[in-house]
């Protein structure tokens, strides 16, 4: 039996901070911990609105912004829960971005899908293609190279030519999702958002998914935002029978994250999962022990920020325990009186600072500055070595 091949490149993501997660459960935990947490008593609420009401009633304070949210996403009026409630334009923009960053993923999926096609997946083959041809016109973005993949998805719904709309979506396979996203949305209207709320699937393909879907899909599309609308709540569970394949996307995601800018997280999660674009995940549920924060993978090219770690949305100041760039901890420790080395040729004096540049001639004045400040507290002993050339004396003031 053909296993369902699911595209994981588009995982669930948090509306407030754009971070991505493996499944919606974790996303919800993240939102509760980061965005819906009362800053006074740390109680976790279930929505932003609920949190503001709690703070107002219990602590008599007004909350105007969602904590840890990116600018433009801070409104407490929008009802978000997991992936539900995200305005369609934001949703589209998110996946549109994903487009640009993951061409490699598309290629990968394409390859594996073609294998599927070759395999025992007869049905889609027969049925999937015809729609394709019609689609050709519909989706100019359609990559001819991706012709195969769609068929590769052995998904029962395919044969049912119900929603011409949906077909359009389903065919441009998961592989093409990245490419086709944008044109698709205007066509699609709403359906995608719903299924995409599910942890596993990528957008349109999701409809393809479980046979059960078709019946509910039509009902769903209409409702946006999805919030506690009865029908919607059924969708996620149905779709979760998609096998989750994080690794499929992970290599791609790695690339994605590599290409994107330095990690922008102030995450308190304890694992540094690949999760893409933002490069960080708050996965508190995965913590093995509470402890120091570990952020997501940041990339080679160092941050442009001077003394601030890349923690933008949380306005945390950063305090470096060791901030002396000029000297290492051992060098500073060595300069203490108790570690001074005495050999036969050394003189001991309490009032002089000796600077020498052992390898060359003259004094390394660039090293004078950091040490001078230091000498205000310490008296240094002189070390004389045979190679020493020029000595200067600095009287501490």
């Amino acid at each position, binding site marked *: 039996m053909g*296993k369902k091949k699911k595209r994981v490149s588009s995982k669930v993501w948090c509306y407030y901070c754009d971070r991505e997660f493996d499944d919606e459960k974790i996303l919800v935990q993240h939102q509760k911990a980061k965005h819906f947490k009362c800053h006074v008593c740390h109680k976790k609420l279930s929505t932003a609105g609920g949190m503001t009401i709690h703070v107002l009633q219990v602590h008599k304070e007004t909350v105007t912004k969602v904590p840890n949210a990116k600018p433009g996403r801070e409104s407490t009026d929008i009802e978000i829960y997991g992936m539900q409630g995200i305005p369609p334009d934001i949703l589209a923009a998110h996946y549109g971005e994903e487009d640009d960053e993951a061409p490699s993923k598309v290629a990968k999926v394409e390859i594996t899908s073609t294998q599927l096609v070759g395999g025992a997946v007869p049905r889609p083959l027969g049925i999937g293609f015809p729609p394709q041809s019609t689609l050709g016109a519909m989706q100019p973005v359609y990559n001819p190279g991706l012709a195969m993949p769609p068929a590769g998805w052995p998904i029962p719904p395919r044969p049912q030519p119900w929603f011409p709309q949906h077909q359009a979506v389903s065919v441009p396979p998961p592989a093409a999702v990245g490419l086709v996203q944008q044109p698709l949305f205007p066509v699609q209207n709403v359906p995608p958002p719903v299924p995409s709320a599910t942890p596993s699937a990528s957008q349109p393909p999701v409809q393809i998914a479980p046979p059960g879907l078709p019946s509910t899909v039509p009902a769903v599309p209409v409702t946006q935002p999805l919030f506690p609308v009865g029908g919607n709540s059924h969708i996620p569970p149905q779709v979760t029978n998609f*096998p989750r394949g994080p*690794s499929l996307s*992970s290599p791609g995601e790695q690339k994605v994250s*590599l290409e994107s800018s330095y990690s922008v997280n102030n995450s308190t999660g304890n694992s540094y999962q690949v999760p893409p674009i933002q490069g960080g995940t708050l996965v508190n549920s995965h913590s093995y022990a509470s402890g*120091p924060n570990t952020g997501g993978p940041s990339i080679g090219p160092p941050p442009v920020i001077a003394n601030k770690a890349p923690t933008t949305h949380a306005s945390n*100041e950063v305090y470096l325990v*060791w901030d002396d760039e000029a000297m290492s901890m051992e060098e500073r420790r060595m300069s203490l009186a108790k570690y001074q080395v005495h050999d036969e040729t050394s003189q001991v004096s309490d009032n002089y600072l000796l600077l020498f540049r052992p*390898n060359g001639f003259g004094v390394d004045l660039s090293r004078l500055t950091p040490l001078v400040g230091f000498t205000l507290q310490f008296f240094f002993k002189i070390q004389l070595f045979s190679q020493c050339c020029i000595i200067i004396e600095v009287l501490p003031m």
Partner: protein
Amino acid sequence: MTAAVAPVAGRELSNPPSDGISNLRFSNHSDHLLVSSWDKTVRLYDASANVLRGEFMHGGAVLDCCFHDDSSGFSAGADNTVRRLVFNYGKEDILGRHDAPVRCVEYSYTIGQVITGSWDKTLKCWDPRGASGQEHTLVGTYSQPERVYSISLVGHRLVVATAGRHVNVYDLRNMSQPEQRRESSLKYQTRCVRCYPNGTGFALSSVEGRVAMEFFDLSEAGQSKKYAFKCHRKSEAGRDIVYPVNSIAFHPIYGTFATGGCDGYVNVWDGNNKKRLYQYSKYPTSIAALSFSRDGRLLAVASSYTFEEGDKPHEPDSIFVRSVNEVEVKPKPKVYPTPPA
């Protein structure tokens, strides 16, 4: 034998050094542990038996030490000397000198030479078989852009990390010039560099709670794998406290690695899956050094204040040797989508 501080922290070695620990290493042949300290001594312990087997006193703080074989080793001193230590006879002599404190020492089995890095901005290679005295033992001097802070060897490669965030990669077979001259991809002072046991790259840590995973392969494909991650940080009262990552140690078998920071925690990471595998409970003070035993079953942790906040009263310096459980260091298999039938 002293009772364990707590089963989780591991067994504390008796007779620890009386001042800070600069480095500790397990032998490649046994469970002997060589420890260098700011109290001017180099001590040899049998970690499993928790017994001090030997002690050498130097003229100044000892900043690094390494094994040659199970019966001898080398030390790098703040008195600018590189010393050869013979454990069985308790004898030592000076292999050579630098012009400033010697910060690192390594022995390369590949070329049979001792390599030392110093704050005098040079790297020197020594032949340990020569009689004592520089004229017999010094093989070469290689100048570095800045003071050497950390070095690491794997196979025929040597990575040197200096002040000013320079990183030089040498091929030991041709030391005349570095194979690669690089810059640390971290924006802050380099603290420690360690090569992967599989020889494909190295991990580099900085004072800003970050570790970068780098690769020797300079091609596009090779460099695309590199990444960095934040670690050893604490967030409290609206600000992030960022601790230097003092030490990195690779598990010889699994290739996962442990990092120790000034926050007193040791974390074990899976570099390939980019996940943290484990975090040991907090040690009394900063972690100055880490070392896995040759079979990866023991981890020695030097819990020793590293003066990141100046000279201040601190917890006593101690060494913990803990047995390592597989679950703490073994990488978890990647989760792949169920393959098509």
